[in-house]
């Protein structure tokens, strides 16, 4: 079986910038808001938006918490300087700690989810203030693995990079001249000290992207992936995560009572009428 995740970066850029332009303008907007974490995914969404709409129409929002790595702010600044987007820095410490301090024995995971949701609140508030749509920054790998906070980092108006695996995000970021220090550093949600995605997940993006490509894009069975050399425990973990976190990819189901119910037989695209 052939596993080749290489993409044509010129073609990807052309389609994704046209998508950003289309989804923004047909909704009646000229501008967008991006939460710029200092990581590669939000850097890529921000740069694509700057190319699609003009950098002056992009507001990059930095939202540090008191435990955030200083590198995150600096790396976000590299993108802001290089691509000339507008910027604002809004610390979330006070708003997050308002809730966190109510529960002295709160777990890191709860704190992380609160931070992600505080950032969502800031972004959608800036959306109103800046009159711009919130651009999504979740890639295909983390969406499939459910590695996100529901109504936190997964919340957006539209998502240009959600059909690119992390490996492909890296390739496209390189082609768009995103600084190497951002592309090469260990991916992290930076919710607590020394947190890394790959440490938390228990496998690398390079490995899991190959497996996801076979399972999802090429429709191989789990058994065929094991026969091809992937460890059974790894395959089982990934298959289970895809199923278990499917709820994060769906709107909440509505209990059907009437003859026409939103989600089942009231079907329209979001672009309806535009």
């Amino acid at each position, binding site marked *: 079986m052939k596993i*080749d995740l*290489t*993409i*044509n970066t*010129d*073609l*990807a850029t*052309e*389609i994704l910038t*046209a*998508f950003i332009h*289309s*989804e923004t303008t047909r909704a009646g907007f000229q501008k967008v808001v991006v939460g710029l974490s200092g990581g590669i995914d939000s850097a890529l969404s921000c740069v694509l938006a700057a190319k699609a709409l003009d950098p002056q129409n992009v507001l990059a929002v930095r939202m540090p918490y008191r435990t955030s790595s200083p590198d995150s702010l600096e790396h976000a600044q590299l993108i802001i300087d290089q691509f000339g987007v507008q910027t604002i820095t809004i610390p979330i410490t006070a708003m997050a700690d308002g809730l966190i301090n109510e529960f002295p024995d709160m777990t890191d995971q709860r704190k992380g989810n609160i931070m992600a949701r505080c950032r969502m609140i800031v972004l959608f508030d800036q959306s109103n203030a800046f009159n711009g749509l919130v651009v999504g920054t979740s890639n295909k790998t983390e969406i499939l693995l459910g590695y996100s906070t529901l109504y936190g980092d997964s919340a957006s108006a*539209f998502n240009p990079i959600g*059909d690119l695996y992390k490996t492909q995000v890296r390739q496209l970021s390189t082609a768009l001249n995103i600084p190497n220090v951002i592309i090469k550093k260990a991916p992290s949600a930076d919710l607590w000290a020394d947190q890394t995605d790959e440490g938390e997940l228990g496998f690398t993006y390079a490995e899991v992207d190959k497996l996801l490509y076979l399972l999802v894009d090429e429709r191989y069975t789990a058994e065929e992936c094991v026969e091809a050399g992937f460890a059974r425990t790894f395959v089982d973990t990934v298959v289970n995560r895809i199923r278990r976190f499917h709820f994060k990819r769906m709107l909440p189901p509505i209990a059907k009572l009437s003859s026409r119910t939103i989600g089942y*037989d*009231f*079907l*329209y*695209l*979001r*672009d*309806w*009428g*535009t």
Partner: protein
Amino acid sequence: MKMHLGIAQIDTKLGVVDANLQKHLDYIEKARHAGADLLMFPELSLTGYLLQDLVPAVAHSPTPSDPVFKELFKASQDIDLLVGFVEEDERNRFYIADAYLSQGKLVHIHRKVYLPTYGLFDEGRFFAWGDNTRAFNTRFVRSGVLVCEDFWHVAPPYLLWLDGADLLLFTSASPGRGLTEAPQLSTSMWVESINRAYASIFTSFIAHCNRVGFEDGLHFWGGSTVYDPDGNCLVKAPYDKEAFLTVEVDLNQLHRTRARLPLLRDERTAMVQRELNRILSDDRSNSGK
């Protein structure tokens, strides 16, 4: 004989027929100035593609009293038109249809025969299936019309060929997919390969008009083409951009190609019929629909 074929590779507004009609009239005016004899629009050009529950709200009938077709009949006095729309029949069934208009009259309607209902497609849920594949005479050349999935099946172009069509007019709203290392999407490579193959094996002209633009995350890739009976690409529109283009089609190329390569003359239609009858009469066959 030569004809000038125009292609309107347009984007559409989803469910806004009036705005799409105005765009049609603008392109028709442009084509008239460019001396086009026939102007093709893409699949569902008057409505947009992913209509879902909008289907009944945007349906029209190609009659002189219909407010949309009234304008198109008027516009077709001196230029032939092929437009895509949702047709509602007299018993309120809805079809994906193309109408060929000429000199203020309806010449031909093609109702999409194959409705893809798999993967990202859900046409069979919202539309009725057409059940005719017929060639028709135009002012220039006997022609046939197929819509998107229709030409992914070999039978419809084959039937049109046997029914006398020398110009096959293909329309589509093809969502792009398959991003690889290649400089074009897999979808466009597949479509260009089969259109070129049809031109070559049917020694006929193939004109394909695809749309552009986005509907939610779906991206329509354009890249409309015209192939001659030798399989040469006469013209190709850009990918992903609205475009209007015209091309001179030298119909005498049919004479030259078929003198060299008499595939039509040698086609064994009686054998095809015999074998089809045998295959379809076999109770174990599941090939009959």
